[in-house]
């Protein structure tokens, strides 16, 4: 894969945890941001990024190439990762 998948998550959200666990279990290397743990300035930038990508502030968000998956959805993850 050219670009590593990127996960936007909240540290307290169990669905975000499941998405990360799913990627880990499938040995997918990805970048991850726990948005709630960022400092204020950085958080604003990242939230803007997420809103541009998805039109809302819902978590988790997984970016895999041109696929953007909002919420924990193993079927969509498999499809986008071709696994």
């Amino acid at each position, binding site marked *: 894969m050219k670009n590593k998948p990127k996960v936007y998550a*909240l*540290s*307290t*959200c*169990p*669905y975000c*945890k499941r998405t990360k666990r799913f990627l880990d279990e499938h040995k997918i290397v990805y970048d991850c941001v726990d*948005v*709630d*743990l960022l400092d204020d300035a950085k958080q604003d930038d990242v*939230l803007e990024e997420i809103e541009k990508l998805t039109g809302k*502030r819902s*978590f988790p968000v997984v970016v895999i190439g041109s696929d953007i998956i909002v919420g924990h959805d193993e079927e969509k993850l498999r499809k986008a990762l071709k696994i």
Partner: protein
Amino acid sequence: MIVAKAERIYCPVCQARFKFLEGWKAGDAVICPICGQTLRLESGSEGWVGTRPEKGTEHEIRERIDQYAKLKGYVFNEMREELVQGLLGKNRRFGDFYCPCRMEHVPEYQCPCKPTRGGDVERNGKCYCGLFWRKP
């Protein structure tokens, strides 16, 4: 004898005022009929207020969600425990039991959040985080 100055009690969790029932007195523990929080009744200069006797404890949030579900006839599913852990994480990091799946830490997102209290479970079958569910 203690006489109620106002006939409503302010709940610091859902920020609503609920009806004072006959026979209640200062020091009594009552359940907020709107959010399920256990409150200790106190009489203040502005009338009756409820305080949170176990503020910020695990027991407080577990009891609150159980009491809220019972009041509304909602049920939980297998995500319950993980969501409770999320609520505890919110309290540790952000000072109170805010929705674990939301970014914002504002009073209206104190669990059970305002959209939930406003009927989200009836409308969508579940609350935003999927903690409370409509009975199947």
